């Protein structure tokens, strides 16, 4: 098994310690935002000071409204992400293992994959209307690609000896897929899952902006159109925090589940 470069490069390691200089820069940027807006009143309607955005975040009525939208967005995110993960991992393992299955689907995959996923939003609206099922469907579609491609890659990189080990212990094909191919490809699958995490949030908010009704994407665009710009920025802050929280959660789960793999790569044994 060997690691492709993108997998090693995709994880920016945090030092794990309190990052003073990084936080200082963040504070400086906040201050820059605050004062550049304060000293140029002409742009304040489009670019309100940070303090005003933070202030509106803590307005009880707005906070309650935002929380409702957050739950809607989160629900669509979780539905789309987990559905995509289940489907893409299962399909990817089969396509990675059975050569004929891959040849069959290769052309379709290579044609659809490079297409920007948002381009199917109109199609989804036509077929599914403007409800949750449409937004989840679009998210599933977009998230599935990185997971699918990485899973296929992972299974194809499994050493023949590992598969033969399963066979000599009397495992049939399907058991080999589940008990050997799946865990052996896990490092690749996790890479796909990590990439899809941010894609899922992009697709959920974008489709919310397009079809409206509810969700953080809808809220951001709606407040912009009503010229409530500090509310709009408050919505952006919430969606940013949601993305941050999901990423931290992902890393926490990955650290626990993939401990065996980190040790392996640290020793250079792959």
């Amino acid at each position, binding site marked *: 098994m060997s690691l492709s470069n993108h997998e090693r490069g995709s994880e920016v390691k945090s030092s794990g310690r309190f990052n003073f200089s990084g936080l200082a820069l963040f504070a400086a940027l906040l201050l820059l935002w605050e004062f550049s807006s304060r000293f140029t009143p002409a742009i304040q309607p489009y670019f309100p000071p940070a303090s005003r955005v933070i202030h509106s975040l803590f307005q009880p009525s707005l906070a309650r409204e935002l929380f409702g939208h957050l739950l809607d967005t989160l629900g669509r995110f979780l539905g789309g992400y987990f559905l995509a993960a289940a489907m893409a991992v299962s399909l990817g393992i089969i396509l990675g293992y059975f050569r004929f299955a891959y040849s069959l689907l290769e052309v379709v995959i290579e044609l659809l994959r490079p297409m920007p996923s948002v381009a199917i939003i109109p199609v989804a609206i036509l077929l599914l209307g403007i409800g949750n099922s449409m937004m989840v469907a679009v998210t599933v579609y977009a998230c599935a690609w990185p997971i699918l491609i990485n899973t296929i890659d992972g299974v194809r990189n499994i050493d023949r000896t590992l598969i033969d080990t399963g066979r000599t212990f009397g495992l049939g094909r399907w058991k080999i897929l589940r008990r050997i191919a799946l*865990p052996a490809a*896990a490092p690749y699958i996790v890479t796909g899952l990590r990439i899809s995490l941010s894609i899922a949030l992009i697709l959920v908010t974008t489709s919310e902006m397009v079809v409206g009704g509810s969700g953080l994407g809808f809220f951001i665009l709606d407040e912009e159109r009503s010229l409530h710009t500090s509310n709009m920025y408050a919505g952006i802050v919430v969606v940013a925090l949601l993305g941050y929280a999901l990423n931290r959660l992902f890393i926490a789960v990955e650290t626990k589940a993939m401990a065996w793999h980190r*040790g392996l790569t640290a020793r250079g044994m792959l």
Partner: protein
Amino acid sequence: MSILDVEGLSKSYRQAGGESTLAIENISFQVNEGEFVSLVGPSGCGKTTLLMCMAGLIAPSAGRVVVKAAEVDGPPRNLVLVFQEYNKSLFAWRTVLGNVLFGLEVKGKPAREAEEKASYLIGLVGLDGFERHYPWELSGGMQQRVAIARALAYEPEVLLMDEPFGSVDAMTRLELEDGLLRLWKELGTTILFVTHDIEEAIYLSDRIYVLGRRPSRVIQAVEVRLGRPRNQLTTRADASFMELRNEIYKQTAPRLSSGW
């Protein structure tokens, strides 16, 4: 009584150009129940091909393998293969205990019984205290012991070993040889051991089949009448050990005395 019969086994491979090459040709030999038998032959003589056919992992072009009166047409239930490349064969995502348990899980052993048996086998290969370690935390020799314990957990009647000690250093190799002989004596499993190391084959075996160059056939069957238990120092210094060694060297490398 014979437990393993190889009858007229040949295997040819189709090459890129379309022509086929013969890896092994008309190989026949047998292994009796409880015996320790080695196959020796020069590197690249098709030993691995032969083992893969015996383990039911690839189909032979001609001939057949019979294990316990049943013809092999897929991996047999009562036989397991230990690979040379233990680092590729062990499950990196499972601990030592998890790897050994695998051999019992696939047989559907109840969890409690499996755990006891696994601990017993881990002790038998001298890895007590390493149950919770991952393979990458162990040395090469220890990893191969995990692979052996995992294979034994499957309770095979025949254990096939493909140059299992080929990737470890010389000192570790001697320890592994003695460890394997102790296991064999304790469990009574029939072992077919493949190596290119003639002295290793003599040291371990009751009988040796010597294979020639590609396409290989059995060119000699040698009975090893050295006493047991064997000892790395005294057995290897024994006059009959030397005699066997010279005899086999003469067969496999007739030009050895004249140089190249």
